[in-house]
């Protein structure tokens, strides 16, 4: 039930955004977001609402670090 999915914002009309999830488009209400978002941002959506903006920089940094640990045989 708490299923959520990451989607990319393709348009915003007032407080409703259209988001793209691997080619499928859905509407998401932006009323619950703590920060401003713009077209191109990724948001995590649940039950028709965007509930958080995805931190792209942090995501990339963490994934790169994990890959680095593996590369250096630490994992």
């Amino acid at each position, binding site marked *: 039930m708490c299923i*959520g999915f990451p989607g990319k914002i393709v348009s915003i009309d007032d407080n409703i955004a259209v988001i793209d999830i691997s080619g499928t488009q859905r509407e998401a*209400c932006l009323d*619950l977001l703590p920060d401003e978002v713009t077209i191109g941002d990724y948001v995590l959506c649940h039950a028709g609402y965007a509930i958080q903006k995805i931190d792209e920089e*942090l995501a990339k940094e963490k994934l790169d670090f994990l890959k680095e640990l593996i590369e250096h045989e630490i994992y």
Partner: protein
Amino acid sequence: MKYIDEYREPALVERLLRQIHREMDMIARPVGIMEVCGTHTMAISRCALRDLLPGPLRLISGPGCPVCVTSVEDVDRALAFAGIGNVMFITFGDMLRVPGTERVTLQRLRADGCDVRIISSPRACLSLAERNPGKNIIFMGIGFETTAPAVASLILTASARGLQNLSVFSVHKVIPPAMKMLLDDPVLCLDGFLCPGHVSIVIGGAAYGFIPGAGAAAVIAGFEPVDVLEGIMMILRQIRTGERKVEIQYARAVREEGNPRAREIMYSVFEPCDASWRGLGVIEASGLALSDKFRTFDARRRFPLPEIRSKEEPGCACGSILKGVMTPGECPLFEVRCTPEDPLGPCMVSSEGTCAASYTYRRGR
């Protein structure tokens, strides 16, 4: 990045598994980790992760599915609301086949002519209420902290638009009090929690401070295989080193402070109340009731119901399965009399229920 495929990469999965095996070798004793999110339960079963993990590492599914933890009394109340004349009863799809007393379901009521609708976003209630001014629209608000802000936002919008014919039957719950209860259970003896990723987007890491306080590990994890395995590995590292803290594996979505705006909206409409959980009983301050300010939107105050004598299905082990003290395979009804086509208990109905996950992927270890 699309935030999906990158977290399913076989090479990463393989190395994380290797590291988990190493950690377990160093810990050298059995370890029990509970997940309290239906999406984790599904991810673990779908990817058959239990088959890949070391034997002494036990992944226990807890009360992570809001549909499954809904008490039979609340299911019976939903059925009673749906049966009132001139009512349109709206809910999320998973609720439709959950049996109440004597195995009556919303689906059966709908077949008998009651107006029962399914939606995927609470916002759909607005247009249904506006298009049907002569009907009383009752929405069953169900879900943890991930969903409750969305329903609170619906009520705020309905209030601003002056909608008079919409009300909410809230069975919303908050998860930390249930985790606290399970942590104190001497039978379960949990070493750590894989904390729910999407609930944590709203409540943040700080909400789990009681877990390290009680000597257990806590890691908030995402839902792809790399996320779940990295989360497990982080828990094992805490167990091995003796350090106890709340860590966030799912940092791309979860912040330490959570989503304060979503919480503010949630608590502007709801207030904590005692709630009855299937399998766990009544837990203090674990539910969300509409506050007095929004009483006109409270279905229970608007449509008082007569007393209902509720009774759970005899022999159904959902309560013990939700507590983590039984596995689906240990229930005598599982696969014999209780199947997804003809479910007797909620854990087999919901697509995120422990029994449904176990049945679907045949990994009921």
